[in-house]
């Protein structure tokens, strides 16, 4: 009962799935690092740093991701192409490919969205715990890394699960700049087999499965990360 095209294009769709997962993983890791830095910048006492980071998160969250991708890919891409120095350099093969533009756009986007989330988490950590940390003689950096950040992340796990699902859905925009991710692969199949929507339905199912997987992973992390409460 399996339609013939699924067998014929299985390897293409498989590679598309791998590309989607790759983009998701890279932009999660780098985006998260950027997000922590952005969160710290947002609550910085230095007004200039705080204002600049506020501007960054506000503009990134206030404009469509698709247009940001176009700005990077078509805008900066066409700018790069004008310089013979860049065209001739070893970087050019990378700068021509849509892949790194989508990764860059997603990292920028995660940095802004998750940065604001983490900022909220850092502010939600009870003040007494920070005071306790410094009473133990921790330096500000130590108390940030050992107390404030871990506490904030624990509080934020459910929100971060939602943000990761959003990121998964955003990776589908890669197909608009000719990257063959999962949706891109489905579009190739559609073009070659002249099927209007069947491939789309198939990958929609895959996206739903990936969403459940992400939610299960975060639920697992939440159980592991929660200390067992002793009954009084």
């Amino acid at each position, binding site marked *: 009962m399996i339609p013939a095209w699924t067998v014929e294009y299985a390897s293409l769709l498989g590679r598309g799935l791998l590309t989607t997962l790759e983009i998701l993983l890279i932009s999660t890791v780098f985006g998260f690092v950027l997000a922590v830095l952005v969160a710290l910048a947002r609550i910085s006492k230095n007004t200039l740093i705080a204002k600049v980071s506020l501007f960054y998160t506000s503009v990134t969250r206030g404009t469509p991701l698709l247009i940001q991708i176009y700005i990077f890919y078509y805008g900066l891409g066409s700018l790069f192409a004008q310089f013979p120095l860049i065209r001739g350099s070893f970087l050019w093969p990378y700068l021509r490919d849509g892949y790194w533009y989508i990764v860059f756009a997603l990292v920028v986007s995660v940095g802004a969205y998750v940065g604001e989330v983490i900022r909220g988490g850092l502010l939600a950590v009870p003040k007494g715990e920070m005071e306790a940390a410094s009473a133990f003689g921790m330096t500000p950096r130590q108390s940030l890394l050992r107390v404030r950040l871990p506490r904030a992340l624990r509080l934020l796990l459910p929100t971060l699960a939602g943000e990761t699902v959003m990121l998964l*859905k955003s990776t589908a925009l890669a197909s608009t700049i000719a990257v063959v991710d999962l949706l891109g692969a489905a579009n190739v199949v559609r073009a070659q087999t002249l099927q209007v929507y069947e491939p789309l339905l198939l990958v929609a199912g895959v996206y739903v499965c990936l969403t459940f997987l992400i939610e299960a992973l975060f639920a697992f992390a939440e159980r592991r990360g929660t200390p067992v409460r002793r009954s009084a």
Partner: protein
Amino acid sequence: MPTMFEMIGFSEQGWGAALLKGLWMTLQISAGAFVVGLIVGLVVACLKLGAPKPVAALARGYTTLFRAVPELLMILLLYYVGSMLLNSLMESMGYDVVNVSGPLAAILVLGLVQGAYASEIFRAAILAIPYGQIEAAKAFGLHGFGLFRRVTLPIMAPYAMAGMANLWINLIKDSALISVVGTNELLYTAKQAAGSTRQYLLFYLTAAALYYVVTLVSNYLSGRLERRIRRWMPVVD
């Protein structure tokens, strides 16, 4: 060769008027989809809370599915499946094949996605109403739509307000995705302008600035509206 300023200006060679027309289309599509999402969201939220089990499960399935599948994929899917279904329906009824109008399809597609998110916000807001309020209203003889309009709605509105304001901003941003199926909204117009002048950076930055202005204005207005809706609530400080 017109200068950059002339290109986005309102002269004959300028794309200013076209971009503003695109912006107007974006706002129309977003507003339409918001209304559709509002209605779908309210109905689905009520179904999830009070309908018989199979119907409630169906409503939950709709929410899960529409929130798990990428919006871009959903738009392509509903657009193609929708126009195909409509055409086969028209054919079977003996009419000619119709071309699905872009903006109308966009409103329906975005509205359905929006409805899934809105239903969760409304569900949470309705659950936040202290049950005694509803009981009191019933004791006063209110029921059905009157109960909903005079008690449920005003009490839940502040709880739902922040979430709905966020959804509106998301909707504006998601409406840019409609450009992939060729509806001439803001991003699509910017794409055309960029393609014909080869000034990609200029036009995409201009369009991004227009979206940003809409977001900022929306934030300001929703803040005002929220203060008004919350006016019955006790002030917490």
